[in-house]
């Protein structure tokens, strides 16, 4: 039945899109403060392996989630120090973290490869809502708690960024650090904290993969999702709420690449997220200049007091 195809595709898109959404929200926070974090993939991998190891050792999901988050924060702290205090090249630092993080995570997880988790996070049906026709099977049946946490997080990030004083300061730091500095904000501290928040979300994204989505350790479990999350950030125009449909769209590409294998080569569909991102960048460049949309103006630029732009 076609309707069933639609609802299952949406359900899988949501499940696939969850780690993308979590990581992209983290990247939105960091980039809104002006710091590019190319280390997403590495942070996700380390979050995934930390969560998996703690879950395997203790059997406690809350402890495992905490471990994933802390792993993400710890690596982010490294990036934060390099990018905001040492004022080094953020792109090099992020790349190094991705390459090193993926390698380290694979090394740590070596003896667990192929072993399933005894007590993984289980999917559940949301009471009442799962009974709603169409929406029920699409969004409220057999999803994980982390999925809903991610959706709530999108709302929270939006509220904080665009409706609170803290968010205003953070965005000003990303747009015009000199103006924020003059207003009394501690530019480096704000940036550092934003990178930490981003790392925490990357860790959670990793946890979703190793604790819930595929609760058995496998090499390269994130499989490039960290990179796709970076594209997602751009496609969402650095906006946490727009990241939700964008994550669903990218999730749909993933699931369709399996479903349509008979019709289309799967490589083509897995390529789509990148193509869409390039297209989005092109459109931004076209419309740009007036500055209404696009990257934060000070994105990727270390801040030194007293330098004119």
């Amino acid at each position, binding site marked *: 039945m076609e309707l069933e195809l639609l609802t299952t595709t949406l359900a899988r898109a949501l499940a696939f899109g969850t780690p993308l959404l979590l990581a992209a929200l983290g990247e939105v926070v960091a980039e809104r403060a002006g710091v590019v974090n190319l280390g997403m993939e590495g942070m996700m991998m380390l979050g995934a392996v930390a969560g998996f190891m703690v879950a395997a050792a203790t059997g406690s999901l809350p402890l495992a989630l905490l471990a994933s988050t802390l792993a993400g924060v710890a690596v982010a702290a490294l990036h934060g120090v390099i990018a905001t205090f040492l004022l080094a090249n953020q792109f090099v630092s992020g790349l190094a973290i991705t390459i090193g993080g993926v390698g380290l995570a694979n090394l740590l997880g070596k003896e667990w490869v192929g072993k399933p988790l005894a007590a993984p996070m289980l999917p559940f049906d949301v009471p009442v809502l799962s009974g709603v026709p169409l929406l029920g099977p699409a969004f409220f049946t057999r999803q994980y708690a982390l999925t809903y946490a991610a959706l709530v997080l999108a709302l929270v990030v939006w509220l904080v960024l665009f*409706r609170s004083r803290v968010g205003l300061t953070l965005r000003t730091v990303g747009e015009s650090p000199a103006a924020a500095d003059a207003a009394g904000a501690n530019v480096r501290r704000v940036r550092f904290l934003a990178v930490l928040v981003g790392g925490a979300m990357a860790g959670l994204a990793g946890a979703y993969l190793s604790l819930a989505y595929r609760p058995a350790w496998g090499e390269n479990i994130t499989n490039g999702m960290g990179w796709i999350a970076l594209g997602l950030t751009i496609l969402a125009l650095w906006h946490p709420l727009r990241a939700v449909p964008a994550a669903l769209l990218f999730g749909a590409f993933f699931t369709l690449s399996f479903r349509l294998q008979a019709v289309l080569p799967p490589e083509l569909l897995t390529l789509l997220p990148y193509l869409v991102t390039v297209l989005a960048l092109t459109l931004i460049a076209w419309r740009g200049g007036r500055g209404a949309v696009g990257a934060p103006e000070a994105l990727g630029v270390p801040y030194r007091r007293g330098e*004119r732009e």
Partner: protein
Amino acid sequence: MPIRDVRARPAHWSGALHAPAPAQRTVCYLDRVRPPDDIPGVRSVPLISVRELTKRFPGVVANDSVSLDLLPGEVHALLGENGAGKTTLISMLYGLLQPDGGSIAMDAQRVTIKNPRHAMDLGIGLVAQHFNLARRHTVAENLAVGLRGTPFWRPTRALQKRAAELTERYGLEVRMHAQVAGLSPGERQRVEILKAVMQGARLLILDEPTSVLTPQEADALLRVVTDMRRDGRGILFISHKLGEVLRVADRITVLRGGKVVGRRVRGGAEASELARLMVGAPTATPQRLGIPPEGEPVLRVSGVWVRGRRGPALRGLDLAVRPGEVLGVAGVAGNGQSELAQVLTGLARPEKGSVTLAGADIGRLSPREVRKLGVAYIPEDRRAEGVAGTLSVAENLVLRQVRDKEFARGPVIDWRKAEAFAAAAVLRFDIRTPSLATAARTLSGGNVQKIVLARELSGRPTLVVASHPTYGLDVGSAALTHERLLAQRERGAAVVLISEDLDELRALSDTIVVLFAGRVAGTLPISEAITETGWERLGLLMGGGAAA
């Protein structure tokens, strides 16, 4: 408007405009000035008083024992040319620089202003020439960022009422929900002023505030200044424009070479006198040149408009230069000099008007095409624009000619020939370099300039455009630069010499034009420029005091 209005508001919104004064203190004045008598109840304790403030930079005393007072409800103008020390002084008042000597007191209490935030907390607001706003934020967001005591949620909503009151009170028309990127320079300036006032500025420093404004906007700004003065705020008005200074200032302090060279009060100043104070007395005896050439101009600029970074920079400029003539372009920086150099060298395109060189329209040509027609360019920023710093001396010397057939061997460069050319240039221009392979950026400013001169003047140019060619150079390099420019004049090139150094202009030029607000404010043949009255007139024209 009664002052009570302002006082009634919470202190963190407006700053306490009239903090209670300690009972006993001695206040001394630099000159006998009464507080403006049209403001009832304003005490005569200076808002800020600066005593013998000194700031040294390597090789120069930027501020030499500068003293001044600013009373509440007073507009105090600081007049001076570029390099007179105005920016250094306000940087110290705003906590951006720490003085090497002297003191600052606010409300007769000695203060050390640590940083801009501290200055703001003391009630000092600065509206700088370069606006400090987040372009993609709305006006309201920009206002909210710097405010203390805004609520955690929706910080922009709480300030709307207060902003609306101030907007109305001072005529600071702004659109609260517009993005700053879409605002005109005038609107951005109003946002900056509003921001400073909302942060509680009792003393507002306006740094060259009208330089980015249209005449209408400038008029509106002067009215804002007058309104703020009436509310007991003090305004330090930095400018080099005589007309507006005479219009708004209660007191005028003139700076030159880092020193206070004159103080005048309202009504006791004349434009010509201020101009003389501002530019000082002529120092060098201008060396006489041959007779100014006659004949048809080779360069004609007519009715040229060029858009600068902040609105139109040239507004219908007309110039003509004959072969063998040095046209000196005087003026205070920012009146269109950079854009003039750019439009003559193909780096900027005129929006309107035409630029012709020997009959050819060069307004639409690329920089490379313009250069092929024989235009040599000695740029203002020699290290950034004049050389590629990491390339070698030899490479920099042939940058311009490297695509010529002479240096080509098939598709590749004939480096033997190129290096021979470079070696000859090093000798001819006395470039002091350890080797031809040395990176250009490691050389001194004088030697970098010699590289530029050697490269640019080697191709028998028709037109030489020289922008501040001796700025910051040692005496020897400056003399060599002058000599080479005059040599070009002798061989019949037209030379456009843009400079702020009036002595240099009078020594080299056949004719001097003064740029003001993107137009030629006046033209003086050298015979007039070297006289006493000509000197005074130059100063007046530079200050916009006698727009022709």
